[in-house]
């Protein structure tokens, strides 16, 4: 059942990615409405798969790499939905859906889908709070990364302060606003993780590789959010934000997101991973 639902969601993500791409080049309201329905059904399929797994496992499906990748796909697609309803910009939903597709592909083809028993340290209400809060931010930040990529791509294709560049500046501002939305969740994730670590292991911070990299990710996004203060032009510049400034911001966001992905999936490649309490 879980596999069927994930396959439906996988198909949904693919249809959304292609559909919103088509809609970006041929914008028509009925087409957009149709793909919004497909997007809603995709989210529903992922949530149903998670609920089914929760019932089967007897604990929230927020533990293994497989489960968190599925959750990431859900939060990415949810962010895409909210963005498409609140602030539709051409191409953004296509890129976001494609990232959701990658997350689901990672869960389906790479991660171990076996239901794992819950180890004593994870038996806490903090598990749900900490992981959900983090993945709401991860989902939004993934979409922010997609918007930044789109911005970099469009900026490279257009030269000078033309209409295209203005639209491109809109993308940089949108990416910034997405990070501004996600950052409090990222902060709450870091704080709840620290409080939980104190309760479970007796130490609120032990410079474990996962803890350190979650701090590094937080710091990089914090630096990113401070960049407009240092580089004037983006926040108050309106549509005429300097091209170089917005490119710089998008590049910074791509770096911050790379750190996020490494925090999420890269810990096993660190020399200190063997001592980590977070490599299950």
């Amino acid at each position, binding site marked *: 059942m879980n596999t069927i639902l994930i396959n439906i969601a996988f198909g949904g993500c693919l249809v959304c990615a292609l559909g919103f791409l088509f809609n970006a080049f041929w914008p028509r309201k009925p087409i957009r409405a149709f793909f919004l329905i497909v997007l809603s059904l995709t989210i529903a399929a992922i949530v149903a798969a998670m609920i089914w797994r929760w019932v089967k496992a007897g604990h929230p499906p927020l533990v293994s790499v497989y489960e968190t990748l599925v959750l990431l796909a859900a939060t990415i697609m949810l962010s895409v939905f909210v963005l498409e309803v609140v602030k539709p910009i051409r191409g953004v939903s296509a890129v976001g859906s494609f990232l959701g597709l990658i997350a689901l592909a990672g869960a389906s083809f790479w*991660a*171990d*889908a*076996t239901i794992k*028993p*819950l*180890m*004593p*340290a994870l*038996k*806490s209400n*903090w598990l749900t709070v900490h992981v959900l809060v983090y993945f709401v931010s991860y989902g939004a930040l993934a979409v922010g990364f997609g918007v930044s990529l789109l911005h970099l791509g469009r900026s490279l294709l257009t030269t000078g302060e033309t209409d295209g560049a203005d639209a491109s500046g809109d993308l940089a501002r949108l990416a910034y606003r997405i990070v*501004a*939305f996600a*950052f*409090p969740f990222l*902060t*709450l994730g870091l*704080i709840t993780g*620290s*409080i939980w670590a*104190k*309760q*479970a*292991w*007796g*130490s*609120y*911070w032990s*410079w474990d*590789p996962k803890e*350190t*990299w979650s*701090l*590094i990710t937080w*710091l*990089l996004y*914090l*630096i990113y959010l*401070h*960049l407009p*203060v*240092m580089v004037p032009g983006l926040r108050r510049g309106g549509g005429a934000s300097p091209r170089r400034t917005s490119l710089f911001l998008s590049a910074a966001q791509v770096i911050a997101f790379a750190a996020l992905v490494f925090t999420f999936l890269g810990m096993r490649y*660190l*020399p*200190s991973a063997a001592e980590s309490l977070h490599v299950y």
Partner: protein
Amino acid sequence: MKKIWQIFTSPKLAVALLVLITAFSVLGTLIPQNAHDVYYALRYGNRLARLMRWLQLDRIYTSWTLGIPLLLLAVNLVCCTARRWSWRLQRFGFVCTHLSVVLILVGAFIHGQGHVSGFLELSEGQSVSEFQLSERGKIRYVELPFTVKLLEFSVERYPERLALLVYEVYDRRVKPRRFVPVGKVPSDWYDLGEGQRLRIVKFTSSPAGDIAQVEVESSNGVEEAQLERRGDGVARPARLQDGHTGLVLAFQEGPDKEYLSRIEIREEGRAVTTADIRVNHPLHYRGWNLYQYSYYPDHPWTTVLEVSRDPGLWVLYTGFALLAIGVCFIFYVKPFLRRASSQ
């Protein structure tokens, strides 16, 4: 003086310090920490190892190289907040977040200076009033203002599960080497030691039995083997070409579900309270915290508790609370206030 004030109130300094702190944090995860001097000399060469020691990159998280940027950041944040101080509601988030980071750093400093943490090993029926503390490689004992008695220690496990047992046969003696979990197929490669690694390429399970096909890679090439375990429990092992490594499908003891220490706190010879200590359920008593840390699988009646005293923790948690409130205010409340005031 004015110049120094300008530097310390500059957000550019804050960002530069954040970049530096980030870079040191990254280095700390790439360079193995707290290893022996010989290790660094062998791995990085004498000259680089000396430089690393001077910069304390071998213990970066307690080093002056990270400590100085953190101290400067705290000063910078205080100066920035003082310079831009305002009682306007719109500035609340700014003041709150910047001071919260200072509080967190102060709390971490107080905690680092006064924090005491060590381990208490207890067998059932045993009472102790001191715990073991390791400081710079030396062990010392710290007296507790009460006695801890272990009434009972219990371990609950999940049901046993099917796995692939790798074992060695020498002189007709069988010695288990490791278990490889049966899950995702094809599985990741598992290191077996002695230059061998293994992965499960196919696994089928039915009421009649289980069949696993595995690949073992070594310097001799890739070797394939098929393992079967019938429904009645009879398993057919396989022996690798090296002659002494065997593989068999077997049931592995389930992982820990819960472990619990039932303890009694005694003062002046009489019982004051009893408590169950589990992972995520510590006991707080007279300023001391007792955590369920571990146990010895070979001595299932002996528990290992972590004992700690954490001064400065409330400062840290206040910092956390202010940070959460401040960040939410800046990004969720302030935009509405700004919009309302502009209308």
